[in-house]
């Protein structure tokens, strides 16, 4: 055990909820080096966008990710709105913002549970996920769906809120507000949990800036970086009051605290919107064709800054759509945090950036410790699978 060996984590591994592949060089319990391979989930959405109309793209881009579907949709439609030169009505903007915040609540509660699960604290997982059902039900009530809400459209939103829904939303948010301090307290004081997350995955402020980290990851390192205030959208700052939540801990504990504090801030925003919802239309009519031009549209998704670059060529189809999901921005910082960490801290450090992977296929077969590893492409693997079953007397 004296020399190092390579420990594969992924593409399939219980610590990963989605496929990606890490190769860790480990020396006993320490990680010496880390390497990353992406692309297991690359579906060619950017290329697909170029062949579809703007309306179709709105729903295609929503399917980039299940958790931040609304963030992708918002980023795309507000970019297209900018190019078209139309401005959604205030009520539409407020509902757009409300959906974003409700989605953030559901995502952060989900993350808290996953973080608990990664360090073996399943009770925490069960508690937060039970509360997540509250906000999932609210989202379903508003949009008709639990994920992929389909709420945004060029020029506003597609569904309006009525008085009953507003009352139910306020009740749901109040219930969540009552419970969240308990998680903040638990995450910050439960001895075994603190022992696992305090001082783990250190990312100093300078490194966070240098490696262009985004979202709660960088805010937990004390960087005041939040697209909602840096580059206001959907009614933020001008209309909707909001403060950036940061923490100076630079470790996983700080990321738990930042997310719990952001939850409280989300409740404030949601309640403010619901109490101050202006009357009026929810959308304006948008043209089919978009004049030539280019723009950058940014949204603060749950995991951080999400950017869509859209280039229009005067037809009803975009010339280029570029999507950069927040997770890609956080990988360099994650590799930095993983070097020198304990093997046992891999899952929680990776989970701490709330990874969400959307990117084609490739397979790695780990044969054994002594023989090293073989990397197979899809065709070889398929042939192997057919041969394997034929040898066992099963018709492929």
């Amino acid at each position: 055990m004296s020399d190092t060996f390579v420990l594969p984590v992924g593409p399939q591994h219980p610590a990963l909820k989605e496929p990606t592949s890490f190769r860790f060089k480990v020396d006993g319990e320490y990680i010496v080096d880390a390497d990353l391979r992406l692309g297991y989930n690359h579906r060619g959405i950017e290329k697909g966008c170029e062949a579809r109309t703007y309306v179709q793209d709105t729903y295609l881009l929503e399917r980039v990710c299940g958790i931040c579907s609304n963030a992708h949709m918002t980023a795309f439609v507000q970019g297209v709105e900018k190019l078209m030169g139309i401005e959604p009505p205030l009520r539409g903007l407020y509902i757009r913002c409300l959906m974003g915040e409700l989605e953030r609540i559901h995502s952060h509660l989900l993350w808290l549970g996953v973080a608990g699960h990664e360090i073996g604290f399943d009770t925490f997982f069960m508690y937060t996920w039970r509360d997540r059902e509250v906000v999932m039900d609210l989202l379903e009530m508003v949009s008709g769906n639990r994920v992929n809400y389909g709420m945004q459209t060029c020029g506003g939103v597609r569904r309006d809120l009525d008085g009953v829904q507003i009352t139910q939303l306020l009740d749901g948010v109040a219930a969540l507000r009552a419970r969240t301090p308990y998680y903040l307290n638990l995450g910050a004081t439960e001895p075994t949990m603190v022992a696992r997350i305090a001082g783990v995955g250190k990312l100093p402020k300078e490194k966070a800036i240098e490696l262009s980290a985004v979202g709660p990851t960088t805010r937990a390192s004390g960087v005041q970086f939040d697209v909602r205030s840096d580059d206001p959208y959907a009614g933020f700052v001008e209309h909707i009051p909001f403060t950036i939540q940061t923490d100076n801990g630079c470790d996983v504990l700080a990321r738990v605290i930042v997310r719990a504090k952001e939850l409280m801030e989300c409740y404030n925003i949601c309640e403010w919107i619901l109490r101050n919802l202006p009357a009026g239309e929810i959308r304006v009519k948008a043209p089919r064709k978009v004049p030539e031009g280019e723009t950058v549209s940014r949204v603060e998704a749950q995991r951080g800054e999400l950017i869509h670059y859209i280039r229009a060529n005067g037809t009803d189809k975009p010339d280029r759509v570029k999507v950069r999901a927040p997770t890609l921005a956080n990988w360099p910082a994650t590799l930095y945090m993983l070097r020198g960490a304990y093997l046992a801290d891999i899952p929680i450090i990776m989970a701490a950036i709330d990874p969400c992977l959307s990117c084609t296929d490739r397979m790695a077969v780990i044969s054994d410790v002594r023989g090293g590893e073989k990397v197979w492409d899809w065709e070889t693997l398929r042939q192997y699978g057919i041969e394997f079953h034929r040898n066992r007397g099963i018709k492929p």
Partner: protein
Amino acid sequence: MTAEDVKKTLEQSLAGKIVELTNPQPRRMFLHVAPEHLVEACKVLRDQLGFYHLTTITGRDTGDKLEALYHFAQAGMVLTVRAQTGRAHPSLPTIIAVYPGATFYEREVHDMVGIVIDGHPDMRPLVLPEGWPDGIYPMRKDWQYNREKGVIQ
């Protein structure tokens, strides 16, 4: 920092090196520079203008050329630096000396559009699958995906 300030500083520091500087929408600026001035422009942006955050790099096929768009951000402003290169031997200098966070974006641009990043320490594929043929770049306009017809036996 307003768009006017940014414009003034850029015109002073990069005198004669700016191909085009536009401000089409509020809080959005586009700067076009020649590839040889790219790294210098990045240094100006980081040190003089406070663009501390590299958001991403977009690779794009304009038809006769390939271009890379470097999106930089700070509070209240997104500035996009455009650098174009010919299709025959597409290459651009690396900016990881200025923005270390650019490593994965540069690898992605190389994967998808085929711009070779000079000076990048690690040009292995990042997002393309293992058996992908060399010299084929999916985000170029002339690349079309032809699905092989599957046969159910």
